[in-house]
């Protein structure tokens, strides 16, 4: 390598002389490194400041605070000598907080709110939206209008109605045409509309279109005699329908004086009429109460839960058995073309489940499916894979085994290679046959290594939405149940379908509550399983 690298940055004069050296000593000096560090940190801070700025502008204060704290933390780690060790894992920690811890906390929070369809907006947004609603009072006047714009971007209107023409200026009374001084009006066109008004230019239809939103945001005239632009053709004497009374925290209907007070995120009158939309508020444990009292739990819940455990356990067992089998076969020294076979066996793992499950589904299809027709031509009949409750379950286990065994094969291959040879040698000398070796050495030692991965696999299959949903959407349906359910539905597909049936509607609060409950079930199951893996570890210690 270069001389500078060998000599280090200390010997400045000599490296200056060898000018083929790419790095000037300054660049490896301490001030430079500090400058680099500060520069990068400054860029990071700027980006997060910008991010926080956007978040605050969108009213997302909690996330803004978290990002702020994380940024401060990263700065401290890089600038404060004593926090020096934190420097190395601060990127990981920062991402963990923002991508994992915060969303989890946020889900927990949402579970206690009514965030969802009908309650998507904030209270301020709802008040603004309701306050912008207008109504046409009885006997209200309707005009056609022409707009004029000043250099400074102010608008006035020339209104025409059955009761004559008016000049309308925001904040000033509507002026009947005959009282407007003639000298400020330009010549009239064939419809009696001035072509210009002093200081203001008449807008063409194209120009009007561009300014339509500004035009309709303004009220012209003085109450009660006002006009608002309601469409390209009409201006009307529109009145504000609802007014928010800050004192009593309620919306008041200007037509009949009804008072709408907030009830669970919606302005509600005393006789129970609700102003839509509602807004997003905390509703305590209502989502959880709703889940635990829902007909879903009184329905086929137990059957679904049992199948969920059976599915997850059998999936892990079958994939592990096949994965281990292939791993052992491929581990054998006399196995030819190992690499090729291993690569081929990895294919089910490499193909996305979205594709392969659909292909399996087609192969199981009743009339033209390859599996069905083949079985029919050999045995004269074939199980109704997608219609029969039992065979649908078998079918889905076959598919899941196909999808999952390469993963198990991979981890078993890795674990097998790490097993110490000397124990096996000792076993052989002691006269243990291959089977005896497998049951008493290989398997226990292997289980210690892959045990945690089996648990992870169980947890994954417990929530394996994709395979269940693509294969038969949980079907075939169960007959005579309290709520719709299918024979291959697992907990997550069953509840998902019930809560968000047919992909319609979004109820984020309820969904979060369900997520948390399923998370709790999984946490308990996983914790129990980890306890049992210790048993394996004890075995391994005794080997």
């Amino acid at each position, binding site marked *: 390598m270069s001389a500078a690298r060998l000599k280090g940055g200390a010997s400045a004069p000599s490296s200056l002389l060898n000018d083929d050296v790419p790095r000037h000593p300054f660049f490896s000096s301490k001030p430079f490194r500090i400058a680099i560090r*500060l520069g990068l940190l*400054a860029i990071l*801070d*700027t980006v997060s*400041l*910008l991010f926080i700025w956007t978040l605050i502008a*969108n009213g997302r204060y909690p996330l803004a605070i978290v990002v702020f704290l994380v940024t401060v933390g990263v*700065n401290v780690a890089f*600038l*404060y000598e004593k926090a020096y060790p934190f420097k190395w894992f601060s990127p990981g920690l920062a991402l963990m907080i923002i991508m994992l811890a915060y969303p989890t906390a946020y889900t927990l929070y949402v579970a206690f709110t009514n965030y969802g*369809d*009908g*309650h*998507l*907006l904030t209270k301020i*947004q*709802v008040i603004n*939206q309701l306050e912008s609603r207008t109504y046409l009072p009885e006997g209200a006047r309707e005009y056609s209008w022409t707009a004029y714009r000043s250099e400074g971007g102010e608008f006035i209107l020339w209104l025409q109605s059955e009761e004559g023409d008016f000049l309308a200026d925001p904040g000033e009374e509507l002026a009947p045409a005959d009282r407007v001084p003639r000298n400020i009006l330009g010549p009239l066109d064939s419809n009696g509309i001035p072509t210009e008004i002093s200081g203001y230019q008449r807008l063409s239809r*194209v120009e009007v*279109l*561009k300014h*339509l*939103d500004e*035009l*309709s945001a303004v009220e012209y005239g003085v109450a009660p005699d006002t006009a608002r632009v309601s469409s*390209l*053709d009409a201006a009307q004497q529109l009145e504000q329908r609802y007014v928010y009374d800050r004192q009593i925290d309620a919306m008041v209907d200007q037509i009949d004086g009804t008072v709408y007070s907030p009830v669970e995120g919606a302005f509600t009158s005393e006789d129970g009429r609700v102003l*839509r*939309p*509602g807004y997003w508020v905390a509703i305590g444990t209502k989502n959880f109460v*709703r889940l635990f*009292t*829902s*007909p*879903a739990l009184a*329905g086929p819940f137990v059957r679904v839960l049992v199948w969920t455990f059976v599915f997850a356990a059998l999936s892990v067992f079958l994939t592990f058995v096949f994965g281990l089998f292939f791993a052992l076969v491929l581990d054998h020294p006399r196995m030819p073309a190992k690499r090729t076979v291993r690569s081929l066996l990895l294919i089910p793992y490499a193909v996305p489940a979205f594709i392969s499950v659909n292909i399996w589904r087609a192969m199981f*299809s*009743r*009339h*033209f499916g390859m599996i069905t027709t083949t079985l029919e031509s050999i045995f004269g009949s074939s199980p*109704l894979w997608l*219609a029969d409750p039992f065979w649908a379950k078998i079918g889905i286990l076959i598919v899941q085994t196909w999808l999952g065994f390469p993963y198990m094969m991979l981890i078993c291959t890795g674990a097998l290679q790490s097993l110490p040879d000397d124990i096996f040698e000792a076993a052989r000398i002691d006269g243990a046959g291959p089977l005896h070796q497998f049951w008493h050495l290989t398997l226990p030692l292997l289980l210690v290594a892959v045990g945690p991965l089996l648990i992870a696999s169980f947890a994954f299959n417990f929530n394996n939405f994709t395979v269940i949903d693509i294969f038969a959407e949980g*079907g*075939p*349906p169960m*007959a*005579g*149940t*309290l*709520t*719709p359910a299918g024979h291959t539905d697992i907990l997550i597909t069953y509840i998902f*379908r*019930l809560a*968000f*049936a*047919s*992909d*319609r*509607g*979004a109820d984020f609060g309820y969904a979060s509550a369900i997520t948390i409950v399923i998370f709790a079930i999984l946490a308990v199951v996983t914790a129990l399983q980890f306890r049992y893996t210790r048993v394996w570890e004890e075995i391994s210690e005794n080997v």
Partner: protein
Amino acid sequence: MKRVLLLMLLLSLALFPVFAAAETEETAEEPEAEMEVDPDITLVIWADELRAPLMEALGVEFTKTYGVGVVVQQLGFGDIRDNIKVAGPAGEGGDILVGAHDWLGELVTSGVVAPLDLGAKVNEFTEASIAAFTYDGQLYGLPYAVENIAFFYNADMLDSAPADWDEVREVAIALENAGTVEYGFVRQEGDPYHFFPIQTAFGGYVFGVNPDGTYDADDVGIDNAGSLAAAKWLEDMVVDDHIPAGVDWDTYHTLFETGQAAMMITGPWALDRLNTSGVNYEIAPIPGGGKPFLGVQGFMVNAFSDNKALAIAFLTEFVATSDVMYEMYERDGRAPAHKAALARVSDERISAFGEAGREGLPMPAIPEMSAVWSAWGDAVTLIMQEQVTGEEAFTNAAEQIRNTIAGN
């Protein structure tokens, strides 16, 4: 330590405007494609794959005439509905949304779409399409196309469509006995959408209708006498092997196209493949006066748009004309909701669909509809799989639907 932190803050503040300026510059540059275009206003349209090219073409014309830039952002059809719920309130999202009328239940109750006032132009559209886009007495969308399913029969085998569903059964038996076809009538397993017209032909319904024309979620009609009669009809057809079980959408179309089946119900989206197959088919209204669901496509306006009035003007002034509506039909192939454009349609197949949908019912947009689909679909599947009788299946489905509505 403190000094360094202060330095950091100053450095950040110094860099801040640089980044901020870079950001605003980027957004401002986009609409400068055309010379006269006003750089301050851009209409953003959210459209799906099918309508995006069309909206782009319309946008170019609009920009030429009015000097306002139009940007079309392409999203998945269902994603438009889901994303606007989050993007809209955050001040983002399209100003104009392409969508279906049955989204209104969610979007209106959430305050995400703005009311529209078509004025006298309302009368230029078919009553059914306007009714579909009306929610709680207020119009929320500009309809452009109506779609519904209709009855198809093989014209080489049948001279005319059967008058009712008992005749469908008789014709099916006759054709099967004559060895003309394998199955008289074919349909997909499950799939309540295609079963609904049969159900209504027997007097069934999903939700009762209030005096003001809105749907009444307390009146579930899945187990009324008519619905049960329709379920019984299906059960008999399946048990006697006149309708094959375990068939999916593709398969039943193939059976019809290859002459192995004589009758089916399907929608305009199947026309292309039917024409390619060369089968001699005719389209007829649903036998027995069955009413299909009407799906109405149209445009909605984002309630949080900064260009709300402009977006509405774009729709009412520019899109809601006979020419544009006809152009949309030519590109899209669905029957126009605009009367004048509909009158210009010369394709008799589209007219036939229009005929079949004349008495159609708008797909309920009320949120309770979500409780219906899976229970109802399961019931149809169970009948077709011969697991339970039609009466059991539909009685149970109605119970499930009432449970779900009450439980939520």
